């Protein structure tokens, strides 16, 4: 698919209106829970009281709780939560397999990523977008503030589908270079010859909070294939002659369901957020579904 066309069709005015709508809806849904600031486990100079601890030499006198000293005759230090922005990493699968379906899975992934990025930017989070296939193909540096959305659009639009999927290698490469933990949103079809679990294990290993958006196309779920076929793998160009029989189709459908079930089970096992969708499902509904999972916005 040409990127020029994608730019026009994916992120037009109507799309922007939808993003704004999603932003409003998300605020209404999660009002009182989240603000621009994120609480961290770090104790720092924030306004929110966190805990007490014994004073040790070198501590800032300004945080001593004098009232407690008068009552207990002990020097007790008040601790406050450190407030900082949340890094969100959008790993968008741009392998050749994503260039499949009508609309393509990559187009759908772009829209979902764009929507989530917009909401993240609106919440003053640091949004990182990474395009990966058999490695990190492109990386957008951290963006903050709604004004950066067009830069993200451009990045997503320029994303071209090619290469085989090797998420494990891609994530490993990225995580070893990227320093801060954050929310990792993986948008992929998870057709990974090396296995999806190893890739997600990497993200878990680096203690990212993980949210999985599993994209499928209707043609994959229920392929309307018949007859004597030469199947060509879009990523590897590997071919295989097969005769499509009803039983074979049934077996394929069962295998696909089994595969999706495996991804979901993995996510459930490690308490990862997981949403599966098809490309014909309205992406705005999907975004709201992501919110409802309560993992994207804390």
């Amino acid at each position: 698919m040409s990127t020029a066309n994608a730019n026009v069709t994916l992120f037009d005015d109507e799309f922007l209106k939808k993003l704004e709508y999603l932003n409003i809806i998300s605020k209404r849904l999660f009002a009182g829970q989240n603000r621009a600031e994120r609480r961290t486990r770090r104790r720092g100079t924030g306004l929110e009281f966190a805990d007490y601890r014994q004073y040790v030499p070198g501590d800032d006198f300004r945080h001593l709780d004098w009232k407690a000293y008068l009552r207990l005759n002990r020097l007790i230090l008040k601790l406050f939560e450190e407030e900082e922005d949340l890094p969100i990493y959008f790993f968008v699968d741009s392998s050749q397999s994503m260039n499949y379906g009508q609309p393509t899975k990559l187009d759908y992934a772009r829209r979902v990523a764009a929507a989530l990025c917009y909401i993240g930017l609106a919440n003053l989070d640091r949004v990182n977008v990474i395009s990966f296939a058999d490695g990190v193909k492109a990386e957008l540096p951290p963006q903050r503030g709604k004004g950066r959305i067009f830069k993200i659009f451009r990045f997503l639009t320029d994303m071209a589908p090619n290469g085989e999927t090797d998420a494990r290698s891609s994530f490993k490469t990225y995580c070893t270079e990227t320093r801060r933990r954050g929310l990792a949103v993986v948008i992929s079809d998870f057709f990974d010859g090396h296995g999806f679990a190893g890739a997600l294990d990497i993200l878990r290993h680096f203690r990212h909070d993980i949210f999985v958006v599993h994209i499928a196309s209707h043609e994959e779920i229920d392929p309307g294939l018949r007859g004597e076929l030469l199947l060509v793998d879009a990523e590897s160009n590997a071919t295989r002659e097969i005769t499509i029989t009803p039983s074979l189709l049934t077996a394929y459908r069962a295998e696909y369901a089994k595969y999706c079930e495996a991804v979901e089970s993995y996510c459930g096992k490690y308490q990862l957020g997981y949403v599966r969708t098809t490309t014909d499902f309205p992406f705005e509904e999907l975004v709201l579904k992501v919110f409802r999972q309560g993992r994207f916005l804390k």
Partner: protein
Amino acid sequence: MTFLALSPLQAALLVILTGGTIVALYFLKLRHRRVVVSSSILWRRVLDEQQLHSLWEKLRWILSIVIAVTIALLIALALARPEAESLTGKNERIVIVLDTSPTMNTQTSDGRTRWQRAVDNAKGLLDGGGPTTEFRVIDTAGATATGFTTDRNEVRKLIGEMSPKTADPQFPRVDGKDSQVYFISDGVTIHNTPSFVKRISVFEAANNVGITAFEIRSIPSTPLGYEAYLEVQNFGQTAEVGITVSGAGGQRINKTALLATGESYRDVFDLSQFGGGGIRAAVQTKDDALPLDDVAFAYLPVKRKTRTLLVTKGNNSLETLLKLDNYVDLTVTDPANYRESPTIDAYIFDRFAPASAPARPALIIGAPNAPWLKPSTGEVTKPEITTWSEDHPVMQFVSVHDLSIERAASIDAGGLTVIAASKETPLIVVSEKPKWVMLTFDLGSSDFPFHVGFPVFIENVLAWFNREQLALKRSPGIVDVPLSNAQIRTIDGKIIPSDQQLGKTVFQTNDPGLYAATQGDQRVHVAVNLANPAFSDVNRSVFKTDKAFAEQHYWLRRELWFYMLIAALALISVEWFTYHRRITL
């Protein structure tokens, strides 16, 4: 298994070629449609898993080939017309001879007829034969004789169209060397058959009272007097028989007779009170099995006077004789005053002949010279009559063996019918067309006028000229009438189809009746009656018991190729079904 259309070598080659071709076609690579999928990971898994069932996959492959080869072989071998004796029976020939005697119309206790039983038996033979069995059907009337055929429907149709026909049944000439010959009969009319013939009986004893003779004959002593002779015989159990003789004018004679088994009733009925026309005799009795012989027909000539012109120079004996005849309206004239008249029915020329033939029939006495008559070539003295034709209507009841003739003219009788002659010399000749009778001798030079047969002769001549004749007697079946191009009608006016054979008109009828054959102004009546004790005696069968026919049935009723094509069609349907459901490849 043998093949009717191919030699064993050809059949083997056909099997090898067909099988080889189909297998070769199966191994040809199909051009696969190229389809790009997002990932073949899942497809690989599915296929790898399916390869675990590779035995089934191989079986599917083999099954597909086997089905295809089987279909091709079935079609190919069907063309070779295979034959398996164990299934279809050996290639045999069966000749079915059906007895079409009139007695086959006899009704049986179940209300059907012997003929219907025979038809059932014949169809049983057809059903019992193998698919390749050839059949031939012949009747005993000589009317039906097919060639050998395996087409049962054709044979069955033909049998359905047959019926008892003729009064003269004969066993046909059939060859028993290569064929099985079955004769389905009641055994009444045909008793002797060749030894190789297997006889199937449809006989069942039945009661029958039939007319075995019925005819009208003239009374020699009474001009235009007729009487009817009737003979009825009982061939069943003792029965009371009602006998009726009825005429066209409503006249009726009824009689009753009690006839024991085998007893006959004979009677002569005076028909002087009957007007002319058809006469019907009928018998009525209970439980009569053969209606065909319960009626008989005859024809009573219509009585009327013949307007006769006697042209003579003087012949008292002849003139007196004619004047005494109640059925002759006589006019006498001498040759000088002779004028042909349209009101005259017949002429008698005594020692005279006009220059041209009259329009009406004539009796010429004395062989005078005339252009339309045979010229005299000489004279014969004291000729003795050596031959005469009693069968000719003119000579009926006339005895001329002791006739004494002084002189007679000698004529060339070519083209004429000689009904009395002295060795080579014709004495009485007849011309059929124009109709005339000539005596080559003068009455005065013979003692013929003094013979008792002379008035009968004159009466016969006048009757032959103008009066209606008694009906010809014929039996049911092919009926011939001695008239060419005649139209045949029943007594109630219905036209019967007829043919011309050897100058005669021929028609077919299976029912007794009175028929009229008309050609121009000529009219002949034909009385068709069974009237034959050989047919009425329906219990005179050679079969002692009603032998049941053991039918032989084969498993298959048609040739194998038919079933092979059906099987091929079924397999194609199965293949189509399984292919579209990917059960077979």
